[in-house]
């Protein structure tokens, strides 16, 4: 399990645009490097990040090796109703991780 840090405001007003910040621990090995004896190091990256809000997809990103290690992604969404955000990262070698965060919308 990789460590992940999610920053979602715990409370928001209905209709307010909130900013969500996510950071996940992952080396994002590009597949273009060689070790110190010249052997290629195989690619190992997160390829997709999806955020759903009360079951509705609100954000999706396809990541390439050009995304830096420990991927940091910040995006916006409209606070519509109290509920749960679900964040899912998937990638090479069967990497899959899900985190959730709750929000109270008044």
């Amino acid at each position, binding site marked *: 399990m990789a460590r992940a840090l999610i920053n979602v405001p715990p409370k928001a007003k209905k209709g307010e*645009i*909130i900013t969500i910040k996510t950071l996940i621990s992952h080396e994002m090995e*590009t597949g*273009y*490097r*060689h*070790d*110190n004896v010249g052997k290629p190091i195989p690619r190992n990256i997160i390829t997709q990040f999806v955020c759903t*809000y009360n079951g*509705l997809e*609100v*954000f*999706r*990103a*396809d*990541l*390439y*090796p*050009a*995304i*830096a*290690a420990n*991927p*940091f*992604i*910040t*995006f*916006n*969404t*409209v606070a*519509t109703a109290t509920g749960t955000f679900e964040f899912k990262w998937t990638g090479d070698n069967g990497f899959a991780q899900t985190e959730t965060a709750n929000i109270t919308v008044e």
Partner: protein
Amino acid sequence: MDDTATRRAFLIGATSLAGGLITVLPVSDARATPETMQAAIKKVIASAPLRKGKVTLHLPPLVENGNSVAMDVAVESPMTADNHVRAIHVFNEKNPQPNVVSIRLGPPAGQAKIATRVRLADSQRIMAIAEMSDGTFWSDEVDVIVTIAACLEDPV
């Protein structure tokens, strides 16, 4: 060696003079070029015209370290059901391959604004393209200068 690889080798050579003892960056044989970047862009926009505007791409003009460069993209749009940004695609010219990230959004976003951190292998042009709900494509581009850390490691 072409000029960009030479320049990178020069910077490495200037700071670690014994040469040879470097495990640094990805210098792959398969590098993106302005042509592969255009080909990757064509895959997204097909034959539609690419207009300048609506998109603001921000990267620091002088990058401290190409391993992690803060990037943000914002697109002017009301993000309503009739008028919103469907996707944002970012491309580069000189990394080993031309794609950086592809984002899918919609009206639930409220505003089309994202930030992330990217890797840049060399000084180059970065382009962000927004795909709108009416099928039009808008873009912005930035030229970035990438230096490398002055003191590198020995391998091991």
